[in-house]
Each structure stands twice: as structure tokens, then as C-alpha cells.
């Protein structure tokens, strides 16, 4: 094992005598235990006889300290996340000019301070050691390093053409306008801007609304106006249209204090996080989403109470007449029942997602419009008149690109990786063959660079200027939070300088001043017309700007829907990965290591099949399968997953980078896009006919959760029905009333408690990333994860219950439970873990000698042992110089041989207490937030003082739903382990009407 070599005994003891491999071997072979001890104690004697002092540390103060900087105190900057096209507002915590944590911006209206894993992990992207240090220019087969001056010189002579195009990712702010201005200046048509997002849903939804209402918009969805949400292959909690905003809103709609918490019914062929969260889940065959949607529209149309004007109904009738569908009788029955409920309750139907990007994906959105008209969702739960979502891409960008590319001389590819994110069948490489100059401008090396003539490193979004308009009138501003870490440039500035070199300048000094000019328009809308500088400053500080924007709804036009039939049989679906998205997060170790929420697999790509299909084919977990489609062949290991349709074969996207730009992605996973197809210029990544063959090999997937069932323990995850809850709602629980023989606990000023609402948790794993970033939790790599040595302080446990075809999925964030009667404390021989008067199970790293007794004693298995000193430069066996500048300076970095675990973000508690002390008051409820709580898009986590009778956490601990993990069944005087944790859970509530579930 390579680790053994690197961390040999000799290496650590003889730290200074950098041992060659031979010496190491000899040391191990040569020294008996006794000999070793002999020399060792002689050495100790020598050490203590001489007066030694640890190495001198230095302090380097500023030359000119900025007025807003106090060393040791964090400064926050509001900016915009460009991780995906959602444009969430973020606050970046910086210490001495270095970003150390990304948090959501509470002032951003739709996300309210929450953030997804990808957004938080951007910090690792910023400090990534493999970012390009300088520009490259192609000479023959090789890319050679050049200076920026040379780049301008080189390109200026090649830009005297109007055959220029720009290929970029989805963007909603002023950027698209700017890029079009650039093209215009060069004499190229504005249409030569091609925006592509692998999440085709943006384009499909907006396009359908363009056809139906003549408006290229995405409706704003407000679940709080609905009591019934139906998803047909929808993935609004996975990737969807705006992941965080949807999750936040969904959580609000499901709040049990509402009279009718919104119920979610999902019809899908694969198991998505959205489906896992559904109250009722109906499994349908892959590729039949369109049929189900049509059947639902038909059933709705037949309902007498169905909504919609006369003219609208006529057009829908015409659509439904064209397409008749025949579904299985029981499914038909389900749909008929759903249709009745849909017209009775305020409801909304969401169709499609990255699990359904098949040939009918665009048509599905049109039918979704018909359905939503019939159930009266428009201007209720869905709005296209106020606060609609801005589509980050154009309607036919990809088709236009395929058509135009042959005529282009120069193509800029900015912050987009088409070579990797488009299926191999799209033939990107073929298509750009005749483009003379391909200029790839990326913040991080990507596959497309390998085809470029010029590769220009541009700013990471944390170093750049920009803005985003996620919803109409809802802007977020983007400002640099750190000086550029490499010799990179702002992409837009490069374009401006290029224009200047070809003597066609735009009248802006840089992109920042361009934005400043644009933002003047906001000031005209809101300000008093004076003092723009002040407005500019406050807007940047706040990070958001909102103004009212309305448009009238247009008449419904006729539908034109073409439906293609999908043949039966096994079908491949390659959805976007929940953490890595289309692969843009693959180089970030923290995302790789949090693992997939449903399979718990980290650092790998897997093939998911239903349990039945795997059994039918005689396949077992980890069997390597060969998948063959019309486009190609792929090999990956099997993970049988409950809840899949028997015809579904699911391989997530995101991994399988083969261009060797990053040690993190090297050799990790496979890319399913090599077997995906293209139709009408768009990628087809779902419902692709596929054949499976067994290779006879096995590959051990690094699945973190070893046990997937709850067995007969009903006190880990509890659930009850809404009726049961309503019956007992006013009953107050006292979880602490556990009879025992322990002496009474010492009581401090506070008793910190945390509560996790399992009814709200959507399993997005944002908490895990937040925790890792906040607490300097290292990533250990695939081989260590496979040995169960991952270091997560908070993990996401996932349990399947019920039928394997139709499982109930429960997600349970599990962190140290801070037991009042902690088994770990009693066994520690050196008092390294002790009980704090404020209820926290304290872990004193410098006392720990690494016996691991505590980890053995812990019934929740939340203690993590440092098997190695994770030196921030090694992942697995790979040398990988992770920049330690990203570490949170408020948290001790642990070394080898030390146990560690969640401590309720104690640095935040200290800080909150200090703040309160300085202000001469008590700590207020909600003032201190743990990292996981702060980022949770579903508002599932609450933290606070249990001694404060009015605090939210006290209410939650007294709630009828509250229970302690492994705390038995207090109702029947059965108290389980009696560990009396300060972490309590709120039971899941099934909103299904018929059939009540068992209550633990």
C-alpha cells in the first residue's frame, strides 16, 4: 500500500533524516520493539536535557492596513455564485484578504441565505493548485506558455474578421448583452453568442412558454400557493431550474404549521432526490413521461371543475385529440385519481428534469403548460407575469451553433466545457475543425482546452466582476472578494483589450466600469437621482437589488406537439449528478467525497439497476457491466438501487474526465456521455435503448453506508401520519424525562441543542460540504473511503423501507449527538473527551492519544479518527498541493492519531458569546448558527439554547414529533440507550391521505 511507504514509522520518528525507500525498509526490518524502545528512550533523555523551544513563529503586519480590516476579525463580501446558472447571492467570509468560507446571502430573496454543495465548494476551486498560471498558445501539437502581451499581439492580427462566435455557459446578467456588444463591434451578428447549459430544462421550459404565450420566460414557481405538487420526472430538488430557491420554497410549503402542507406526488422511472422526498411515488417506465403527462392532461380535461378559459380549452382539446395514449390500467387509475385531486386543491404540476432529456423533452414542457392551465396553476403557483425566472440560455443556441460553426474563423469558448459536457455523438471536435482559432478562456483547465489554439486563464468568479438577474427585477451583484491568485484576467476585460488592439474599442475602461454604467439604470429606477456613488456602494455591500417588474399575460397560442414513441426494453438515463453537476464540480475533492445521497458512493461512477432487474440478470453489486448503445460502449460497476423501474439503467454524469488536467479527476469514474445520442441538435441523455453484458470483473464501489435497512429498530428514524400529528399536536414532550441513576448534570448558562426536521430534509448534502469547509475536515480519497475512513463530521444516512419496488426513502443527517450521558466520555482514559457544562461533548485534540475507545463506544458512529496526518497535500496516494490558505483559521487542524467529531461549530458559539458579552447582553435566539444550519436550503436544522424557554429549539424539542435517535419509545416507557442526546430529531410526516403508517 503506498500510504504505508509514505507514512512509515521511520519517516515520522526520524523526521529530519528523510529516509530513502531502502532505509525505510531496513528500519522496519531491523528494529525489534525492544531495540526501538531502547534507542528511543535514550533519545528522549537527550531531548529533555537540552533546552529546546519550538520553532519561532513570525508575525507579519500590513504595511498599510486597510481601514476595514482588523486582523483576526472576518470581513464578509456579498457577491454572486456562478457555479451554475441559478445565480444565488453569496456572502464570502474572508480573513486577512483570503476567502475562507462561502455562505448564502440572507438578503437574496429567493435563496434566503442557503447555498448548495457546488456553490460552497467553489472555495476549493478558487485555491485549486491546478489552475493555469499563465496563457498558452498552440504551436503544432503542443500548447506553449506565453505572456499576456504576446497573446494580445498574437490575437490582434487574427481578429480582423467578422466571422467570430462566442460559446459560453448560461448567464442571466448583463454579461450576455456585453458579449453581444463585443460581437457587434467586430461586425459579427449578435446571434453569434451561443449559450449552452447541460441542464436543458431551462431552454425547454422557456421555449414551451415562447410557443404557448409568446414569452421566452420560465415561470416562477411558488409552492406555498399549492397544496398538491405533482412531478412527472421532475427534479426540482436535484438540479431543476433553481435548486436552492426551489428547495427553500418547497420547505416552506411543507411546513406542518400550515393548515394543508403541500403534498408531493412524483411519477418517475429513476430514483431522484425529488422522488425520494415524495409523499407518493409512482414508478413509470423510462421514456413514458410524455405519455403520462398526456394521460394526465386528458384526465384533467375530462374533469368538470377543470380550469382554463373557453379558448384555452379548445386549443388543449385539439392537442389532446392528436395524441391518444394507452397506459397500463393501474397507472391510468392512479392518474385519474390524481386528476380529481388536482382540480380540487390548489396545485401545480412540474414536468421534466435531467432524468428525462429524451426525444420528447421539449414536447413534455408544452403538455405541462396545458396541464397547469387545466389545474389553474398559472398566476397562482406559477407566475409568468411577476417575478418570472430569466432563462440563462437562448432557445436554439446549440442548433444555431451547429449550423453556423462551419463559417466561423474565430471561436471564443468562455467558462464552458462543450467537449466534455456534450455527448461524443454531437461531434464538437469535428464541428470546430475548420475554425481557425479556438480561444478557450477558463478559470480551470477543461477538456475543451485540448482543441484550442489559445488557452487563456480567466478569473474564478470569486475574483471577478459581474451580475445576475435570476428572476425578473431581482438582481445580484458580483464583486471580487480576493486579489487574483494566479496571472489570470477577467474574461470580459480580455475581450475589451482585444477590441482596443484591433482599433475597434468599446467606450469602457474595463468590465467593471461597464457594469457601473448599467447599474446606473437601477439607480434611475430606485434612487433619488443623486449620489450614484452611494447607491453603488450600498448595492455592492448588500449584494442584491430588487425592483418591481411586471408583464401582461398573453393569449394562449395553439400547441404544436410531436411525440416520438420510445421502444420498450432496458433504457439508459444519464442524469446530471447532484454534486458534480455536469462535471464542473468534479475537480473539487470535497464534492467527490460527500458522496451521492442515494447510493452513498463517493469518488466513482456507478450503474444503477432496479433490484429485480439485477436479480433477473444474476448480477450483484460491484459487478462490472458493459453498456452498449447505438453510440458506443461503456463499462461501470453495478449498484442495485431500490425504487427504479425495471427497465431503467442509470449512470450519473460528472466523472470520467480523461484529459489529465487534474489529479483529483484522474482515473475517477466514467463519462456516460460517450454512449449518449444527439437528436435535432440537442443531446439525448435519457431513455436510450441499451444492452447490458456482464464482463465477469468486479470493482469495489466506495459506498459509505454499509447498511441500508433499519432492521427492527424503530427509534432511528420515526414517522407518523398527518392525522396522527393533528390529533396529538398540542401534546408536549419532555425528552429529558428519562429515569436513570446518573447524578444530576451540572448546569451552565446555556445548554446547546440542535434539532433536525426529517420531514424537511431533502438530502442535498449541503450540510456536509458546509461542515467540511467550516471545520477544516480533510478529504481522504477513494481508497480510504472504501476502508470506511472518511472524516465527515456530519454524514447523511439514507434508509430504504417498505417494498424494494416502491421504497420509502428517509434521509437522516447524523452528527455527534452531544449525549448528556455520553458513552464515549466514560471510556476515554485520558479525559480527552469530557462533558461541557453547556451540554457539549467536548473533544480536546491535544489530550487525545488515539486509543479509539470512544469511537468504539459511540452508538451513533460519528467519531472520526485521523489515520494519517492529512497534510492538505495528499489525497489517496496522489500528491496534491491543496492550498492550506483555504483553511478556517478559527479551527484547530488535527493531526494523525487524533479523534475528532462535530462540536456544534464551537468557534461560532464562542464568537456569538463574545459578541453578546461585548454588547453587554445575553445571546439571542437565532444569533448563533452552526455551519450546517446556516446553509441548509430546506431549513431543516435548528440550533439554540435549550435553557431558553422561548427559543425555537426548545419548542422543537417539546414538539410531539420530537424524538432522540436510539432513544427507544418513551410512550411505552422504553428509553432505548438512555444516552440523552442534545440533538433531537423531528419525525417525518407522511402527507399521504390513505393508509396511515406505523408510528414508532
Amino acid at each position, binding site marked *: 500500500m503506498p500510504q504505508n511507504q509514505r507514512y512509515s514509522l521511520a519517516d515520522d520518528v526520524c523526521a529530519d533524516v528523510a529516509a530513502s525507500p531502502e532505509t525505510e525498509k531496513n*528500519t522496519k526490518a531491523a528494529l525489534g520493539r525492544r531495540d526501538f524502545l531502547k534507542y528511543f528512550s*535514550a533519545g528522549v533523555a537527550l531531548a529533555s536535557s537540552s533546552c529546546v*523551544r519550538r520553532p*519561532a513563529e513570525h508575525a507579519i503586519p500590513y504595511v498599510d492596513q486597510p481601514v476595514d480590516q482588523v486582523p483576526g476579525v472576518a470581513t464578509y463580501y456579498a457577491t454572486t455564485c456562478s457555479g451554475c446558472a441559478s445565480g444565488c447571492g453569496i456572502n464570502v467570509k474572508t480573513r486577512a484578504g483570503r476567502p475562507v468560507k462561502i455562505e448564502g446571502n440572507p438578503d437574496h430573496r429567493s435563496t434566503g441565505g442557503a447555498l448548495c454543495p457546488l456553490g460552497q465548494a467553489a472555495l476549493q476551486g478558487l485555491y485549486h493548485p491546478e489552475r493555469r498560471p499563465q496563457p498558452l498558445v498552440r504551436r503544432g501539437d503542443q500548447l506553449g506558455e506565453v505572456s499576456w502581451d504576446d497573446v494580445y499581439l498574437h490575437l490582434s492580427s487574427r481578429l480582423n474578421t467578422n466571422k467570430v462566435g462566442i460559446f459560453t455557459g448560461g448567464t442571466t446578467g448583463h454579461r450576455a448583452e456585453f458579449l453581444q456588444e463585443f460581437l457587434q463591434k467586430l461586425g459579427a451578428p449578435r446571434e453569434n453568442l451561443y449559450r449552452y447549459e447541460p441542464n436543458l430544462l431551462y431552454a425547454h421550459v422557456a421555449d414551451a412558454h415562447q410557443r404557448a404565450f409568446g414569452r421566452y420566460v420560465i415561470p416562477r414557481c411558488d409552492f406555498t400557493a399549492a397544496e398538491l405538487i405533482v412531478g412527472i420526472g421532475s427534479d426540482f430538488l436535484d438540479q431543476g431550474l433553481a435548486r436552492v430557491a426551489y428547495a427553500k420554497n418547497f420547505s416552506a410549503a411543507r411546513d406542518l404549521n400550515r393548515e394543508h402542507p403541500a403534498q408531493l406526488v412524483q411519477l418517475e422511472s429513476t430514483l431522484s432526490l425529488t422522488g425520494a422526498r415524495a409523499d407518493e411515488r409512482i414508478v413509470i417506465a423510462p421514456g413514458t413521461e410524455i405519455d403520462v403527462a398526456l394521460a394526465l392532461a386528458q384526465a384533467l380535461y375530462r374533469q368538470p371543475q377543470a380550469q382554463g378559459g373557453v379558448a384555452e380549452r379548445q386549443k388543449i382539446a385539439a392537442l389532446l385529440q392528436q395524441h391518444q395514449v394507452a397506459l397500463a390500467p393501474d397507472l391510468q387509475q392512479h392518474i385519474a385519481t390524481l386528476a380529481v385531486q388536482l382540480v380540487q386543491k390548489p396545485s401545480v404540476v412540474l414536468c421534466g428534469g435531467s432524468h428525462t432529456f429524451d426525444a420528447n423533452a421539449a414536447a413534455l414542457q408544452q403538455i405541462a403548460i396545458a396541464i397547469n392551465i387545466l389545474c389553474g396553476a398559472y398566476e397562482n403557483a406559477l407566475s409568468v407575469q411577476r417575478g418570472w425566472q430569466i432563462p440563462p440560455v437562448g432557445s436554439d443556441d446549440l442548433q444555431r451553433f451547429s449550423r453556423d460553426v462551419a463559417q466561423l474563423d474565430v471561436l471564443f469558448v468562455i467558462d464552458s466545457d462543450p467537449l466534455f459536457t456534450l455527448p461524443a455523438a454531437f461531434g464538437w471536435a469535428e464541428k470546430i475543425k475548420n475554425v481557425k482559432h479556438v480561444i478557450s478562456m477558463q478559470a480551470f483547465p477543461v477538456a475543451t482546452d485540448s482543441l484550442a489554439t489559445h488557452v487563456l486563464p480567466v478569473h474564478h468568479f470569486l475574483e471577478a466582476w459581474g451580475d445576475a438577474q435570476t428572476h425578473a427585477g431581482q438582481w445580484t451583484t458580483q464583486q471580487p472578494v480576493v486579489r487574483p491568485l494566479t496571472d489570470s484576467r477577467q474574461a470580459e476585460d480580455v475581450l475589451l483589450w482585444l477590441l482596443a488592439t484591433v482599433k475597434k474599442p468599446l467606450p469602457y475602461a474595463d468590465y467593471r466600469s461597464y457594469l457601473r454604467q448599467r447599474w446606473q439604470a437601477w439607480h434611475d429606477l430606485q434612487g433619488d437621482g443623486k449620489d450614484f456613488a452611494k447607491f453603488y456602494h450600498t448595492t455592492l455591500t448588500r449584494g442584491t437589488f430588487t425592483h418591481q417588474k411586471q408583464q401582461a399575460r398573453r393569449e394562449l397560442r395553439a400547441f404544436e406537439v410531436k411525440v416520438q414513441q420510445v421502444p420498450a426494453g432496458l433504457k439508459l438515463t444519464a442524469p446530471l449528478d447532484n454534486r458534480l453537476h455536469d462535471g464542473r464540480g468534479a475537480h473539487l475533492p470535497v464534492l467527490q467525497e460527500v458522496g451521492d445521497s442515494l447510493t452513498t458512493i463517493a469518488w466513482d461512477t456507478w450503474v444503477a439497476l432496479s433490484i429485480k432487474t439485477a436479480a433477473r440478470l444474476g448480477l450483484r453489486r460491484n459487478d462490472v457491466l458493459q453498456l452498449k448503445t447505438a453510440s458506443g460502449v461503456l463499462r461501470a460497476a453495478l449498484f442495485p438501487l431500490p425504487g427504479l423501474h425495471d427497465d431503467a439503467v442509470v449512470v450519473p454524469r460528472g466523472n470520467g474526465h480523461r484529459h489529465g488536467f487534474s489529479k483529483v479527476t484522474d482515473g475517477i469514474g466514467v463519462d456516460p456521455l460517450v454512449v449518449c445520442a444527439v437528436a435535432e441538435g440537442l443531446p439525448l441523455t435519457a431513455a436510450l435503448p441499451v444492452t447490458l453484458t456482464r464482463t465477469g470483473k468486479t470493482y469495489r464501489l466506495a459506498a459509505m453506508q454499509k447498511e441500508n435497512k433499519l432492521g427492527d429498530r424503530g427509534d432511528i428514524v420515526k414517522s407518523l401520519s398527518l392525522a396522527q400529528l393533528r390529533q396529538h399536536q398540542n401534546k408536549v414532550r419532555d425528552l429529558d424525562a428519562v429515569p436513570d441513576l446518573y447524578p444530576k448534570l451540572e448546569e451552565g448558562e446555556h445548554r446547546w441543542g440542535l434539532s433536525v426536521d426529517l420531514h424537511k430534509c431533502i438530502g442535498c448534502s449541503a450540510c456536509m460540504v458546509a461542515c467540511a469547509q467550516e471545520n477544516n475536515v480533510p478529504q481522504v480519497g477513494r481508497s480510504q473511503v472504501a476502508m470506511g475512513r472518511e472524516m465527515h463530521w456530519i454524514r447523511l444516512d439514507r434508509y430504504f423501507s417498505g417494498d424494494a419496488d416502491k421504497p420509502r426513502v428517509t434521509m437522516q443527517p447524523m452528527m455527534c449527538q452531544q449525549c448528556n450521558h455520553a458513552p464515549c466520555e466514560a471510556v476515554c482514559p485520558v479525559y480527552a473527551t469530557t462533558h461541557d457544562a453547556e451540554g457539549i461533548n467536548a473533544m480536546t485534540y491535544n489530550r487525545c492519544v488515539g486509543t479509539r475507545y470512544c469511537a468504539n463506544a459511540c452508538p451513533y458512529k460519528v467519531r472520526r479518527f485521523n489515520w494519517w496526518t492529512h497534510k492538505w497535500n495528499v489525497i489517496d496516494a496522489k500528491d496534491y498541493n491543496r492550498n492550506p490558505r483555504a483553511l478556517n483559521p478559527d479551527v484547530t487542524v488535527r493531526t494523525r492519531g487524533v479523534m475528532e467529531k462535530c462540536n456544534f461549530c464551537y468557534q461560532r458559539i464562542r464568537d456569538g458569546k463574545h459578541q453578546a458579552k461585548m454588547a453587554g447582553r445575553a445571546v439571542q435566539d437565532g444569533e448563533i448558527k452552526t455551519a450546517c444550519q446556516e446553509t441548509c436550503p430546506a431549513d431543516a436544522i435548528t440550533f439554540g439554547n435549550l435553557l431558553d424557554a422561548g427559543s425555537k429549539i426548545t419548542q422543537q424539542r417539546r414538539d410531539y414529533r420530537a424524538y432522540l435517535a436510539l432513544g427507544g419509545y418513551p410512550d411505552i416507557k422504553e428509553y432505548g440507550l438512555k444516552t440523552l442526546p442534545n440533538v433531537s430529531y423531528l419525525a417525518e410526516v407522511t402527507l399521504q391521505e390513505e393508509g396511515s403508517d406505523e408510528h414508532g
Partner: protein
Amino acid sequence: MAFKICLWLSLRCQLCIAVVLFFAEPAAAWWMWTPGDTVDNVGYKPKQPIAFSHQLHSEEHKIQCEYCHAGARRSPVAGIPPLNTCMGCHKFVATAKDPIKFIAARYQANQPIKWTKVHDLPDFVRFSHQVHGLAKISCQECHGKVEKMGVAVQKAPLQMGWCVDCHRQKKASIACLTCHY
């Protein structure tokens, strides 16, 4: 066979390894047992880039501690003053002296000065000046009579026992989590 070779090699190398272990170990021990517990470092007076005299500034010229160590009230770290604080006065005061010429040149060249920390707690200890200031602990209680010192020297042992003694006397928290997290 391989085993025999190994055995032979190990016997041959034993002495050499013993020598290496004997000398390398103090270095290792230095890292593993930070001698905070056994060596109290009282009297530690590292050489600094310039022989800054606290006595001159603080006692003679009556400059308050927090004028330069401005972080003490607002931050966990008291901080060493940035060069612009020095230059606030030394643009005009004592400009002809060598040390002042040195800092002026550094300031002009936009180069910070690398001081050696005198009061250096281990990395696993969290200490906040702000809160101790609020509790009316004078600077001198931990740092000694700095106003009488030339170049700064460590007066208190800064060991855990010493911290805890004071916390006990003043009825402050002595929970592990107070300082270790």
C-alpha cells in the same frame, strides 16, 4: 531466501540506525511534545529586525498600548502595528536614526517587516484579547511590565496551569472547550 537477505541487512544496519535514531529523536521529540509543558520559555527574547523599545514609547512618551496594538479591543489578536501606524509619527519624529530609516525604507518599498512572535501559544489554543480586555485584565498581568522593557521579553510562562490558575481565581470558565476547539 528473501527473508535471509532481510535478516542480514537488518543486522548490518542496526548500529547505523541506532545512531540515526539517537540524534534524530530530539528533533522528533521537539515536534511531538511541544515543550510548553516542561519548558516555560520565561525570559524568551528573540532577536527582532529592529531593537524596538517599549520603554521609550510607552513609559517615556506615554503612548497607550492600544494605540499600536489596536486589535486588542476588537479582535482575538492584539496585532503588531502596521507600518503606517509607525510612520504616522516617524514621518516627523527621529527620522535621522538608523532604525527609523530602516522602517521608512520598508514603508517606501511597500515591504512588511517580519517580527518574531514573543508570546506564542500553541496552535491548539484559542485565546481572545478582546474578551480578556473586557474582563478588565490589564496587559501587564500576562505580558509583564512591558513599559519597562527594551526589546519585548516573555515574562509569564503562558502554560495551561498558569492560565487555569487565573481562571480559577477570577471564577472564569475552566471547561476544556473554553480554549481548545
